[in-house]
């Protein structure tokens, strides 16, 4: 299979990730639940993985890293921790349902007002203009994605952070598509309180892993609120959840097997370098864009020179539904994703609406020959499918 669905999950993992999961399955006790060598092994795995993730974002303290099931879980904790009744919450027009739905649930309960900052695709200056205008009107929280999962559009998170800091408004960043691909120095951010990410995409860990990274100076005084309550392996006679991180928001047994793999995935990313990974993925995207330029029936959504875009590409073949295009590609052994990508806001903002798009997303393991094969297959669809 030619796998171009890495924005959904990086299916091909580094060998050390697979080995680490296997080792943890053999050696891992329940972290924090015992005093034996199996427990100590798992405790060490968790601690080392926290340290790797913190370091990836320029942070020193492993305690800032809370393990979650996925990015959605992390976003729910972050949103639940910062949203207050009566708040006006600003979100970008490129948010995934992992942001949209938890906020909509609160809006429908009459608790908050959501303001969607609609802006055209690949127009970061327009987004910033709208953000500043709405911050001036008053807001209690901003939630924004770093990179659109549909279009690979890089939103200007650092500049948004500055604007939020000037207005004293906290920021939650959905780093689902940027973690491991874009460098981000969280220590330099002033308004960002949380980075939320999956472990199984750009960090090359197993599915079922994710992280909430607590940013800023006040992470200990104002820790996130628990979404789940239960055992943490410590302070067992206390009636409430601990007031310290990360245990405060980590009720129940940890996914040590997955986290062992995630630790190696993050180590792989740090050794390789996010900049190199991004450069490779963009190179694959450029091959696809230039190859498809000969076929006017194929519309590729690409920023000029990919100046604000990762290697994630969306496209549509005129007269062929996205689902049909993906089906034809799958028949040729090419895996992509078609439809709404759980991000109807992004499709509405970009004008692809209910039809959606076909998304091609390479990883560091994608070969040039695979990108070329995708071009040839799409060219055949454009030439042969009836209009």
């Amino acid at each position: 299979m030619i796998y171009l669905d890495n924005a959904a999950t990086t299916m091909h993992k580094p060998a050390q990730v697979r080995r680490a999961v296997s080792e943890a399955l053999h050696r891992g006790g329940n972290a924090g639940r015992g005093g034996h060598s199996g427990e100590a092994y798992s405790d060490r795995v968790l601690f080392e993985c926290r340290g790797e993730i913190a370091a990836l974002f320029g942070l020193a303290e492993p305690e800032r890293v809370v393990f979650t099931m996925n990015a959605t879980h992390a976003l729910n904790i972050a949103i639940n921790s910062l949203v207050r009744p009566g708040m006006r919450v600003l979100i970008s027009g490129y948010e995934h349902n992992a942001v949209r739905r938890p906020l909509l649930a609160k809006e429908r309960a009459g608790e908050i007002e959501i303001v969607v900052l609609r802006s055209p695709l690949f127009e970061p200056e327009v987004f910033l203009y709208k953000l500043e205008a709405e911050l001036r009107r008053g807001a209690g929280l901003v939630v924004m994605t770093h990179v659109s999962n549909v279009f690979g559009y890089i939103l200007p998170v650092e500049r948004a952070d500055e604007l939020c800091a000037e207005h004293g408004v906290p920021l939650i960043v959905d780093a689902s598509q940027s973690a491991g691909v874009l460098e981000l120095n969280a220590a330099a951010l002033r308004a960002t309180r949380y980075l939320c990410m999956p472990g199984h995409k750009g960090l090359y860990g197993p599915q079922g892993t994710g992280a909430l990274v607590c940013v800023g100076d006040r992470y200990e005084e104002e820790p996130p609120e628990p979404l789940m309550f239960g055992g943490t392996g410590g302070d067992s006679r206390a009636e409430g959840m601990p007031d310290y991180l990360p245990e405060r928001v980590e009720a129940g047994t940890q996914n040590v097997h997955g986290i062992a793999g995630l630790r190696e995935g993050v180590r792989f990313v740090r050794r390789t370098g996010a900049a190199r990974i991004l450069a490779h993925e963009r190179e694959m995207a450029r091959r696809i864009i230039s190859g498809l330029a000969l076929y006017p029936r194929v519309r590729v959504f690409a920023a000029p020179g990919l100046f604000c875009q990762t290697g994630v590409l969306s496209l549509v073949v005129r007269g062929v539904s996205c689902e049909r295009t993906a089906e034809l590609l799958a028949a040729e052994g090419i895996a992509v994703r078609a439809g709404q990508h759980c991000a109807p806001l992004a499709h509405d903002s970009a004008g692809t609406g209910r039809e959606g798009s076909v998304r091609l997303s390479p990883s560091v393991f994608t070969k040039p020959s695979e990108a070329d094969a995708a071009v040839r297959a799409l060219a055949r669809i454009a030439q042969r499918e009836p209009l």
Partner: protein
Amino acid sequence: MSECLITSRGATRARAMAVALASAGLPARVVRPPADVSREGCGYAVAIAQQLVGQAAEVLRAAHMPPRRIYCVGADGRYTEEKGYGA
């Protein structure tokens, strides 16, 4: 060799304390302390040789992880809280 226990607020902090102490050349290990040390039950601590405990407290303060409480083994074999290290 007599040991002291420097209590920690959780497993992650205990590991971080042990790493900071090891980096300073002070051998320490993460342990689960007995009930008379762990006030809320099922606590965490780092164990360190008694003659190093003063240095350890300094290292942890410098690393922004000030010790919560320090317990050392008394003549009766029981842990008693040491107040002399500014914990």
